[in-house]
């Protein structure tokens, strides 16, 4: 077992050896090493987060036919550091009548709900925080903490705009949690486990090829969960300014903003883990754990790029349209898809892998086609009803 095959374990053993050499208790040394590991992961994530600010600004600039930050350093790479210094030295304001403790805890919880997700992300076959056998549910649980942080921020600011922003955002997050949970069950059905590492290990064929519809629904639910366009209803310059975080200034606002960017990157990572084989790519992950980390970060960045692509291309929709879209379309489709996938899995379990793939894809296409046909006929009826009403009204005039 050398450093290049299992770097984390070698480093941990080496550090534990040093600490016990200093006369530290073995259990205490293990706890300290685990703590240092967590600290290292969070530090790396925060450094990535700094560059995500740069990536986001550069990419949005390209989508809008601009150049983006280009003054500080090569390609404007120093720009995010300037942003951070600005955020740090800004005045830290607390509004009158704010609930101080809740107001200050909310940004911490928001950041925490994102960082805690990385506890279950496997970076390489041997490099992961914990291989929880309930990894998929853990994502939803962390999301609930995020929901809580938003409602805390909105309420404690003592500002009606922030409360309305928080209401909208929470309504969206609570609703879109359901199709997300349902689509997380589909990789679980394929792999027979909710653990992230087991899901990746069983993806000899990427799950996107088995269930493209599930991947699409997961992406839509993830974008809604992030509160990004076209689901960015908490934000509205003409009606409620920037939503639940209006009253926050300086680094407290920065925590929400950085949390959102890291959250988008993280969901890009989960999309890759669930449907694109995670750290696996043509067996390259077996060569070196460092290559596996590079692969999963690359895939997460592609997922993040897709989320940005949607954000800067699609127009936002109204909240009633969005909730109707979720409850009347996405949730039923996701549930039907879970049932169909489970049934097909039970029928084709022992079958040839080509038959299995064809059956799965066909069932996906049929579910998508039937649901689109149902939507088409319902909306045609609705349109006829509305047009009929206007014709009657015109006749009365």
């Amino acid at each position: 077992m050398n450093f290049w095959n299992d770097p984390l374990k070698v480093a941990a053993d080496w550090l534990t050896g040093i600490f016990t050499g200093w006369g530290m208790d073995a259990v205490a040394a293990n706890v300290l090493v685990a703590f240092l590991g967590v600290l290292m992961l969070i530090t790396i994530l925060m450094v990535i987060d700094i560059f995500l600010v740069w990536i986001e600004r550069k990419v949005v600039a390209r989508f809008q036919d601009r150049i983006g930050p280009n003054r500080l350093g090569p390609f404007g790479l120093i720009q995010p550091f300037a942003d951070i210094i600005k955020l740090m030295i800004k005045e830290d304001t607390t509004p009158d009548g704010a609930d101080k403790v809740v107001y200050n805890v909310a940004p911490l919880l928001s950041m925490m709900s994102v960082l805690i997700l990385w506890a279950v992300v496997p970076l390489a076959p041997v490099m992961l925080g914990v291989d929880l056998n309930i990894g998929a549910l853990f994502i939803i649980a962390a999301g609930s903490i995020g929901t809580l942080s938003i409602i805390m921020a909105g309420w404690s600011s003592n500002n009606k705009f922030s409360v309305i922003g928080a209401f909208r955002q929470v309504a969206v997050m609570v609703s879109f949690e359901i199709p997300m949970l349902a689509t997380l069950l589909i990789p679980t059905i394929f792999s027979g486990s909710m653990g992230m590492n087991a899901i990746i290990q069983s993806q000899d064929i990427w799950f996107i090829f088995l269930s493209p519809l599930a991947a699409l629904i997961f992406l839509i639910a993830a974008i809604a969960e992030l509160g990004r366009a076209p689901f960015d209803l908490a934000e509205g310059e003409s009606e409620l300014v920037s939503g639940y975080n209006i009253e926050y200034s300086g680094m407290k606002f920065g925590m929400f903003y950085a949390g959102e960017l890291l959250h988008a990157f993280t969901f890009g990572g989960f999309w890759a883990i669930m449907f694109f084989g995670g750290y696996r790519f043509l067996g390259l992950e077996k060569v070196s754990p460092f290559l596996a980390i590079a692969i999963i970060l690359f895939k997460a960045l592609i997922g993040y790029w897709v989320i940005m692509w949607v954000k800067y291309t699609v127009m936002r929709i109204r909240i009633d349209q969005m909730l109707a879209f979720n409850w009347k379309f996405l949730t039923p489709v996701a549930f039907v898809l879970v049932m169909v996938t489970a049934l097909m899995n039970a029928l084709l379990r022992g079958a040839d892998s080509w038959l299995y793939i064809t059956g799965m894809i066909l069932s996906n296409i049929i579910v998508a086609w039937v649901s689109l046909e149902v939507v088409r006929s319902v909306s045609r009826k609705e349109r006829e009803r509305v047009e009929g009403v206007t014709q009657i009204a015109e006749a009365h005039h």
Partner: protein
Amino acid sequence: MTGTQIFFLIVGAATLFSGLMVVTTRNLIHAALWLVATLFGVAMIYAILDAGFLAVVQVVVYIGAIAILFIFAVMLTRRQAAETGPSVNANWWAGAFTAVVTFAGLTFMLKSWSGFSKQAAAIPSGFDAVNQLGNALTSPTGYVLPFEVASVLLLAALVGAVYLAFNKK
């Protein structure tokens, strides 16, 4: 005392304290947030007991859904989040008496149980608790009937809620 026991005592004390704060604080939103802390403490106790699935479901259902709905309900129905009336009524001593007697009775009964002072046996490696739970809930020899009855009950509640909220045109 082992590390687990110390951890359990800390978590237990924090859970009890936040539970006490739920009923004593005057501000309803604070009460809901303390309730979240209490439920989170219960989730941590599940995690200490190696019941990871229950811990995560506790967070998803109680914090992610029920506590959020509490906060929504308080915000949407009250102008003032603070409660002004007295927080106990004339029967407070009866409630306190019942609580003390129940606690003493449970402690007494558990003391006569042989497993009271034993350490829990270690879970064998390779034991998949989630798999076992799933099989138990869906196998005919397990708990499939109670599971289905509970599902039908929840479905009935869901249909009832939709019926009540449905806008009759």
